[in-house]
C-alpha cells in the first residue's frame, strides 16, 4: 500500500491505522493533529480509522512561529 505522508511516499506491507502511523513518526501525543485527504481526523478516531491506498496524510505539530 502506498501512502503520501507529509509530502513523501511511504510504502507499507501491512494495514495501518492513523494511530499506528502516528506512532512511527512521533512519540508526542498532545500537540499532534492528523488530516487524511484534507479532512481532520479527531484523536478519538485515530485507532479506528484505517488508511487506504493512495491516502495523503498530514501529521502536524507545534513549531516556533509568531
Amino acid at each position, binding site marked *: 500500500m502506498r501512502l503520501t505522508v507529509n509530502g513523501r511516499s511511504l510504502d507499507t506491507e501491512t494495514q495501518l491505522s492513523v494511530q499506528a502511523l502516528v506512532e512511527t513518526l512521533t512519540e508526542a501525543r*498532545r*500537540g499532534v*493533529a492528523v488530516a487524511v485527504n484534507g479532512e481532520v481526523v479527531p484523536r478519538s478516531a485515530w485507532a479506528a480509522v484505517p488508511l487506504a491506498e493512495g491516502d495523503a496524510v*498530514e501529521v*502536524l*505539530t507545534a*513549531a516556533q*512561529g509568531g
Partner: protein
Amino acid sequence: MLFDKSRLILGTGGANSLAALEEAIVAAETDLVTVALRRVDAAGPGLLPMLDRLGVRVLPNTAGCYTAGDAVKTAHMAREAFETDLIKLEVIGDDRTLLPDGVELLRAAETLVADGFTVLPYTSDDPILARRLADVGCAAVMPAGSPIGSGLGISNPHHIRLIRQSVDIPVVLDAGIGTASDAALAMELGCDAVLIASAITRSDDPAAMAAAMRHAVLAGRLAYTAGRIPRRFHALASTSDDGLAQW
C-alpha cells in the same frame, strides 16, 4: 478573559534556541504565546513540553496561509492538536510584505466564528476592515503597526487610534514593533495588548528585551489610563506667578 494576567503576547518565531525562547518567555511574564503548526519531521521536539512546564497558554496561528481555505483547515488542525478554540488568524497577501489579504481574511474569520473558534485576526491598520472583522464576531483585532519583522514601529498611529474607536473588542498591536518605545506607544494609543516576536527573539539579548517590553507595556497602559495632558502650541507654566517677588 484574554488579558487577565499580561498584556504582552509573545510570538515564539525567530528564537535561536528553545533555551533562549524559554528565558524570554519567563522575562516577559506573559501567559499567552503563539505557536505555528508544521509537519512533525520539520517541527522539532520540545516546544510544547516547555510551554506546558512554564504554564503558559498556547495561541496557535495560521502562519503561511495565503487563502481562506488553507487558513480554515489549519485552524481546525490547531484546535485538534492544542485543544483550544483560540486562533490567531493569518491570511497573507504576498511574501514580500507579509501584509494580510483583507478579502480572504474576512472570509476565513466568518467561517471560523461560525465553527466556534475564538478568532484573533492579524489585520492591516485599516479601521473599516477592523470594524468588518468585529461585525462578523471576531474576539479581537490585531492590526499590524508595520510589516512583520520590519521593526519599523507604528507607521500610522492615527489609524491605530481610529481602530480603537471603531470597535468594542480588544485591539492588539501585532507586527512591526522594533523596540520598547514602540510597545509603549501602542498602549498609549489605547491598544489592549501587543504581540511581539522578532523584536524580542531576534534582539541581541532576548531575555533583556522581553523584560524591556514588559515594562513598556505596563508603562504605556498606565499612561493611557492615567490620561495624558493635551498637546499645546505654547508653553503653560507649571509654577504660579502668585507671590512672585518684585525687584
